[in-house]
């Protein structure tokens, strides 16, 4: 995983609540056995017309949002299916940051495994940030994970909370499994006790 660095980037606006992972990456693209190449299918059913051309009505197709790394979206983003293909598609498309009031649990976990910073803000903060993008499409925000800060040109920036463990992993680009395996002796010891207490699970 690439370390997450401070950056400034276009912030794209998706003013919809309850965007589910079926919309982020529809099921017809879940049959691949690789992790890569999902970006072109991101939001497929909204993004493309039936003939395969770009749907000009879809917000992310606006020229002002091209190249955006920050996605600002409505409440309960990423609900539904556990498919990690959703963050794979989001990251492959080029986003590394999402700003919303809330996320579904599984999706939220999946983001951090793929170098995506999912930022939670209050409804009031989100409204301000959304209004700033609406008034100035193509506006660039600065995201500074180290200092847990988002800065915007119109002064709607804010500080955000993040679990220190997730923050550390994003900043270092560390592999979770490697971290866990540092505790392999404790896992082995747990299993010894587990076998004594619950022998039927190991029969």
């Amino acid at each position, binding site marked *: 995983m690439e370390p997450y660095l401070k950056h400034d980037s276009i912030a794209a606006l998706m003013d919809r609540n309850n965007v589910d992972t079926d919309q982020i990456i529809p099921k017809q693209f879940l049959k691949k056995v690789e992790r890569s190449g999902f970006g072109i299918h991101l939001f497929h059913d909204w993004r493309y017309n039936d003939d395969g051309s770009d749907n000009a009505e879809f917000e992310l197709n606006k020229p002002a949002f091209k190249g955006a790394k920050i996605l600002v979206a409505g409440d309960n983003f990423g*609900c539904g299916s556990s*498919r990690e293909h959703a963050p794979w598609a989001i990251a492959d498309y080029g986003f590394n940051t999402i700003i919303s009031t809330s996320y579904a649990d599984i999706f939220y976990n*999946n983001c951090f495994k793929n170098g995506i910073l999912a930022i939670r803000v209050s409804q009031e903060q989100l409204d301000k940030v959304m209004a700033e993008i609406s008034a100035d499409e193509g506006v660039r925000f600065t995201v500074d994970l180290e200092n847990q800060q988002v800065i915007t040109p119109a002064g709607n920036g804010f500080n955000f909370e993040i679990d220190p463990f997730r923050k550390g992993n994003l900043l270092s680009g560390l592999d979770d499994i490697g971290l866990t395996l540092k505790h392999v002796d404790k896992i082995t010891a747990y299993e010894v006790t587990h076998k004594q207490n619950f022998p039927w699970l190991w029969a």
Partner: protein
Amino acid sequence: MKKTMYEKIWDSHLVVDEAGQAPLIYVDRHLMHEVTSPQAFEGLKLSGRKVRNPHSILATMDHCVPTKNRDLPIADPIAKKQIETMADNCRENGLNLYDMKNPNNGVIHVVVPEHGFVHPGMVVVCGDSHTATHGAFGALAFGIGTSEVEHVMATQTLPQKKSKTMQVVVNGSLSKYASAKDIALAITGKIGTAGGTGYVIEYTGSAIRELSMEGRMTLCNMAIEAGARAGLVAPDEKTYEYLKGREFAPAGDYWDQALAYWKSLTSDEGAEFDTTVVLEGADIAPQVSWGTSPEQVVGVDGVVPSPDSFADEGKRKACEGALAYMGLTANTKITDIPVDLVFIGSCTNGRIEDFRIAAEVAKGTKVAPGVTALAVPGSYHVKKQAEDEGLDKIFIEAGWEWRDPGCSMCLAMNGDELTKGQRSASTSNRNFEGRQGKGGRTHLVSPAMAAAAAAAGHFVDIRNL
């Protein structure tokens, strides 16, 4: 300190709990299917790691498998490759796989309980959000992403944040023809699809105690639809009776030992939940979803709501969008909505009890002209049991298609799908845009409601049948 069942399971599975990092919890059972595992196996191989405990894993093929003409090669080459990759991965790692031809094959969350693979008090994961199903046994069961699938294979643990606890009490008894599915939809309607985010729900109350194990599975299955990490029902005599004698259930002396442990798991009298939601069983009418989110539901005797009826701006906009997508007008009576296709099946409602009650409604009826009706058992065992009871004949005589098991139209990956504008009555769990096919319109209902809609060609208040 008095503890909830969730806290008891959490505490007994804590492997590492140190400042500055997420707690590591131990995983007892790991369930797998073909869609969310291949990239995890690839990652494992690339890093030179091995599956730590192959016996903790049970795998099936369900999402992409055809539900008819199983003897023919899979027509979709990408699906075929995914199926073959699953078989290769399981063989190379020595994992127990119920492949497409195996008599134990079926939808993962239907198959696993059939074999007694999940017990009370376990921590159970699967790369599938409907893993919550197994909370019906008093196991902490939740969906994970593919990176986490790899993590569990390599370490048998997961870094997890402790959830908050929510108690959902359903008092009294359900009325006739209201089912576990209706409870699940009513709860989602009440608290919303984000209402349970950050929580593990424990379902309590007499209406929950009265549910069969199948009903409890249906209920917990949809905990995720209310945003919860997991759903739990405390084990009781029904749980023990269900498990006893199954292949992976404890046997001999172990049975008594396990039983004593299971009985200690229930939430302590007076244990505190972070929040409590109460419903009256008798108030729950058979539910029908009208929109594109499982929270957009109403009783069958109701009408399609008007956007103006929502005070919340977000919900009003969501209603407008949903009505446009669903091709519905506000204030239309639910019973006036026609259907084109009816689907009974899925990990939510693909068990024997579901087919029994649907057959009871379908018996002696005919599928309405222009309607297609699919009965897709959740497993080969469900299929065989139904056939032994003669249920298949009831469906076939009524004009239904009687299929082989699979996820089928729940997520329409295998070729069973709606075409643009087609409207379904479906016993599955999600009515998201395009879930059952691009432009398809899904109404979530119980098996009895689905069977009644197939015969009438529109929704019917089954309490009046």
